[in-house]
């Protein structure tokens, strides 16, 4: 058996050997997903071939190779660890939920303050009236073309279902904090399903943290968002984890007519991160904004790939991704915009800019346009360069030490991505966070923008 077979087969064996454990208390919803996942996995293992242009560490056979434990018996994290997660940021004032390793835990704050029209619950406890909806999201959101999607489905035993009722605006952000806390290596299938019904509005903030930084973890995160006609969703994702935490992040969304979707992803620290965004816009007149920044240092790797499919007409999309790579940091950006025949009057723009701050840092960028329609306005561009030496000298000549000048220029380079964030509290915090990260503050949770688990007493 080849190494790559081993990497994946261990999960197939796991679900086969533990069918009874997994079946315990499992709702029909998840049973269907597990079964579909396992059968796709068997086929996908046969068919698996790594892409030739991938960063080797980002290859799926490498990411899945370690002997991770999977918590199929649903052993909860120690109670006090989870209980200590409180949002200490009064301004953020979010509706907080925690995913403790792989188990969803709503907080009292969330349960007590759940606004009218908002549902946030575990996939194990979806109210009967929404069961069909959740099942449809699970099926539509399955990552069917990837072996990672098959593993994620085969192992799924929890997840979060968020539904915003039609024409309901949720003012507070729904904040989901993913936490790793495990003494042994662990793979966590994590799933977030969001259904923003017609004319609704919601902000979602996802934060990744690791409390056991020395232990190897793989965060297998799957997000699926359905944005119905006229709905508006803002989705923010901040990764601040450890070098031993790897992440395979699959984000998929579908947008209907006149909807708005804003996605912002920020890599502040981690090990090997592979982010995949796949957004389809069948609706007309929709607006999509995708932005991201990554500060990659030491031996970190952050790879982003985006596929944006314009299928409806009169849609606009804006993408901007900026990466700063230090030390032996490596990054990749693959951006594909597909404009379907029917997608007349599409206005799509994509920008990727990267700064190499060290001679051993690397960046691969490959933007692509696939246009099957004449009446469109599309632009894309990718540049990789260094900090402006003239600006550095000018700042030094005014007495600013070179390192500080570099930090200021790097921050200036990223400022438009941050300023683009309309969620004001988060924008301000991200400014501080990026500044701290660039000035070399250790990337632990105390520096995190969201300060989601400081020990402040609950209000």
């Amino acid at each position, binding site marked *: 058996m080849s190494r790559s077979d081993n990497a994946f087969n261990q999960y197939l064996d796991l679900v086969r050997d533990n069918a009874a454990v997994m079946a315990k208390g499992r709702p029909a919803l998840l049973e269907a997903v597990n079964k579909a996942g396992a059968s796709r996995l068997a086929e996908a293992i046969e068919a698996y071939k790594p892409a030739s242009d991938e960063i080797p560490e980002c290859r799926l056979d490498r990411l899945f190779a370690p002997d991770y434990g999977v918590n199929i018996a649903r052993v909860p994290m120690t109670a006090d660890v989870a209980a200590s997660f409180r949002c200490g940021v009064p301004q953020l004032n979010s509706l907080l939920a925690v995913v403790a390793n792989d188990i969803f835990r709503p907080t009292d704050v969330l349960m007590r303050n759940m606004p009218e029209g908002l549902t946030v619950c575990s996939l194990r406890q979806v109210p009967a009236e929404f069961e069909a909806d959740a099942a449809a999201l699970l099926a539509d959101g399955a990552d069917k073309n990837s072996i990672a999607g098959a593993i994620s489905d085969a192992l799924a035993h929890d997840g979060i279902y968020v539904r915003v009722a039609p024409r309901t605006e949720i003012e507070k952000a729904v904040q989901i904090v993913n936490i790793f806390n495990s003494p042994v290596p662990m793979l966590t299938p994590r799933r977030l399903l969001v259904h923003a019904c017609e004319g609704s509005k919601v902000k979602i903030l996802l934060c990744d943290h690791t409390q056991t930084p020395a232990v190897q973890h793989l965060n297998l995160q799957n997000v699926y968002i359905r944005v119905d006609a006229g709905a508006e969703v803002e989705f923010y994702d901040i990764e601040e984890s450890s070098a031993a935490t790897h992440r395979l992040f699959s984000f998929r969304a579908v947008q209907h007519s006149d909807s708005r979707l804003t996605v912002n992803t920020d890599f502040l620290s981690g090990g090997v991160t592979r982010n995949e965004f796949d957004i389809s816009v069948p609706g007309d007149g929709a607006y999509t904004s995708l932005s991201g920044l990554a500060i990659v240092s030491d031996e970190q790797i952050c790879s982003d790939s985006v596929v944006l499919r314009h299928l409806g007409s009169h849609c606009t999309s804006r993408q901007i991704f900026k990466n700063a790579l230090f030390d032996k940091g490596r990054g990749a950006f693959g951006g594909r915009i597909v404009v379907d025949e029917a997608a007349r009057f599409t206005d799509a723009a994509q920008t990727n800019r990267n700064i190499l701050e060290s001679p051993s840092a690397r960046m691969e960028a490959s933007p692509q346009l696939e246009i099957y329609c004449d009446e469109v306005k599309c632009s894309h561009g990718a540049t990789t360069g260094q900090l*402006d*030496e*003239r*600006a550095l*000298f*000018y*700042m*030094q*000549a*005014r*007495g*600013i*030490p*070179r390192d*500080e*000048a570099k930090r*200021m*220029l790097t*921050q*200036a*380079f990223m*400022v*438009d991505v941050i300023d683009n964030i309309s969620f004001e509290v988060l924008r301000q915090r991200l400014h501080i966070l990026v500044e701290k990260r660039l000035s070399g503050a250790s990337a632990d949770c105390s520096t995190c923008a969201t300060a989601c688990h400081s020990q402040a007493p609950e209000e």
Partner: protein
Amino acid sequence: MEDLLKVENLRAGIDGKEILRGINLTVRPGEVHAIMGPNGSGKSTLSGVLAGDPRFTVLGGSATLAGVDLLGLSPEDRSHEGLFLSFQYPVEIPGVTMVNFMRAAINAKRKYLGLEPMSAADFLKTMRQKRAVVELDNKLASRSVNEGFSGGEKKRNEIFQMAMLEPRVAILDETDSGLDIDALRIVAGGVNKLKTDQNATIVITHYQRLLDYIKPDFVHILYKGRIVHTGGPELALELEEKGYDWIKQEVDNEQI
């Protein structure tokens, strides 16, 4: 009196090409020196080499500021020691606001001198006072460094920064170029206000006009990387009248 700036037999080049071919210059406290000379003679190279521009390579000689060896210091430490260069072409820095830029500069200097960072209130007060020296618009002070500034605004901004940093030796590289007549008067007036008997100014210019406002004690002519002539203020008037040909002939004949 102790020399403030002493440059001896300074030679420097770029990409293997020697540009400064033995510069000697002594500046004492309270003095104003003007350096004139044809295009490409090495005036900006001299100011860049003194400020530590990494594009240039020092090939020999020395430069000291109040006895401190400048050439061994980083550009930032040269600034902390009291050297200021008003750039002929100030650099635009999108995304870095003037306020953050100046605060970083001031506090870096204070740290070098062993002082606490300036309080926010004191800093803003100082900004306000120094802006007044060159009548710099508050709007410019709140924008990104030099970004979208007009040529004249950039030069005014240079002298504002000089006012903030209170250098011991300021080199003004063609600060007059790009300034309209009123701005020239204001900026030159600003430079004069900053003058004390403890500091010194070197003005690099092509025009007598600036020297009507900033009165030099000495005028030097730089040609082909050397100071080939030094005189009093009357030398600038003579150049205005006669151009550089006579100087060029003198020097080029000597070389034969």
